[in-house]
């Protein structure tokens, strides 16, 4: 008889279940390793850098001496460059999303646009730096300025903003649009008065998440010419600049332990900024889903 007798079957079944348990434990270990590494990293950074985090650190410029160095220039640079870049990406990205979702027909052109955007989202960020270097710094003559940096960042996060905004617009039920049209409203009226307000919180969440990604970006800005030693505050859009992650990179690259410590302090500031931004995004998301249900 090809099938096992009851006893053999039960033995084998017990073995199969044991294997299942072992596998489950391995899976849990995998997750634990991931989360454990995260915890380890956060602990190490805090341990190394928290004690260096004080008001002096936040308001000083970098210096040859780690005890006197601070991230003020980098913070301002981040604010200007990422803030402006985020704004530009917001305008362009939402505009593109509105066109693709509300206006474009499902023809070859719009499909090419979609695939193109998906591909752009997967391009390594350093390539955007190369692009920014050639087009904004050199070709457009903007030099290694805050403006060139903002534009580079804007292009970098543009695909993310577009995709997130499209999702937000898709989530608006078509009944809202149909209701608007039935009342005789024009396309733009329906979009601007009915659809966008409904999708706005989601769009904003997407932009905030894109900006929080941009804040951590180092490579594209290095390539397009951000400085790594900026002992001054950027004064205007054409000024040279640095950003927080580049400042951190600069300090990590130095051999002295003192610089490693303030690098950790800089990382703490960076992470706290990201936590705050993401919390705002999560809060917005919750508030928005409550609105839908309420």
């Amino acid at each position, binding site marked *: 008889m090809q099938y096992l007798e009851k006893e053999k079957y039960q033995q084998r079944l017990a073995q199969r279940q044991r*294997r299942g348990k072992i596998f489950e434990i391995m899976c849990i270990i995998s997750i634990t390793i991931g989360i454990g590494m995260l915890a380890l990293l956060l602990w190490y950074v805090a341990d190394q850098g928290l004690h260096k985090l004080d008001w002096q650190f936040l308001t000083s410029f970098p210096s040859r001496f780690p005890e006197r160095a601070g991230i003020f220039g980098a913070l301002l640079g981040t604010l200007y460059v990422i803030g402006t870049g985020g704004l530009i990406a917001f305008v362009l990205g939402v505009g*593109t999303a509105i066109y693709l979702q509300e206006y474009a027909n499902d023809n070859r052109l719009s499909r090419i646009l979609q695939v193109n955007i998906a591909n752009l989202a997967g391009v390594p960020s350093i390539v955007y730096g*190369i692009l920014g270097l050639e087009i904004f710094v050199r070709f457009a003559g903007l030099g290694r300025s805050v403006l060139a940096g903002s534009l580079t960042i804007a292009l970098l996060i543009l695909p993310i903003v577009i995709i997130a905004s499209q999702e937000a617009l898709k989530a608006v039920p078509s009944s809202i649009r149909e209701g608007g049209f039935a009342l005789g409203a024009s396309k733009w009226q329906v979009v601007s008065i009915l659809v966008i307000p409904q999708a706005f919180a989601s769009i904003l969440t997407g932009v905030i998440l894109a900006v929080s990604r941009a804040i951590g970006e180092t490579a594209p800005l*290095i390539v397009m010419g951000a400085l790594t030693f900026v002992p001054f505050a950027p004064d205007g859009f054409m000024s040279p600049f640095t950003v927080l992650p580049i400042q951190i990179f600069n300090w990590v690259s130095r051999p002295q332990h003192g610089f490693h410590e303030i690098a950790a302090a800089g990382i703490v500031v960076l992470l706290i900024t990201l936590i705050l931004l993401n919390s705002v995004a999560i809060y917005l998301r919750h508030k928005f889903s409550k609105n839908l249900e309420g």
Partner: protein
Amino acid sequence: MTKEAKESDKFMALILEGILDPRNYSNKRWRAGIFEQIIKVILLLVSAISIITTVAIVSVMIFEASLFFQNVSIFEFLTETRWTPLYSSKHFGILPLVTGTFLVAFGAMFIALPLGLMSAIYLSEYAPDKVRQVIKPVLEVLAGIPTVVYGYFALLFISPILQSISDSVKVFNAASAAIVMGIMILPMVSSLSEDAMRAVPRSLREGAYALGATKLEVSLKIVTPAAISGIVASFILAISRAIGETMIVTVAAGQNPTFTFSPFVPIQTMTSYIVQVSLGDTPTGSIEFQTIFAVGITLFTITLTLNMISQYIVRRFRNVYD
């Protein structure tokens, strides 16, 4: 002429006629209509920026890289095993950078693939809903940490640990970068694979359970194969990300382009080379400057190809359930 071309011609003619006729300007309806069209055109132009970006990336690369290849043969570029453009005796073989890149990327996948896949299976098949809702966002945090922070961790925490294990490990090495990079891409593999598995309909699992299969058998022999196109796509995307990653390797893997397979010595990747040149005082237009684009176009081509393969796999092999 295509139908659309004819229509847009008619359309343009109407608009021009309208603009030229001053009687229209007081007609509110006509003004509103033109307004709508203007909005549409503005939005279209804004959308064109994404296409222009792609065109710009490709043209810039091709233009500058072609300048480079006027001075360096493609043959040398692809086969020479020394990369020394910044030295006086210059060799322009990309292989050291490529092997460095792949050494770190594959090392990272060695970690991210099994851990990511097992995490995905657990979250999709085993974890109760409440557990999943907590663990999934925590794993996503791993993906959100800036890479320069990972670089810091790799150089100052992981590398010393590796060095204490073995004497042959140098301060800058591919292994510390690979380990940390693996943890960074883990959520990507986990999240995308889990999505693919959750898309497998419940009815398939029930059919398998009803035949007397254990949970392990259902997960590994039914669900995972059914989701395989999404899982493989996630692997390829993760490799592509690892290849394009810059700061972890720049901080921790070294600045020594060498054609080696050892994970314990300093190497250089394509991305960290570009950073190195950008940080230096390279005069624009020089051959050293042009290497940025030669390496850049290689990097871009590799990642673009991988991304397109991943999209193709999902399109072609995804199971369509009714």
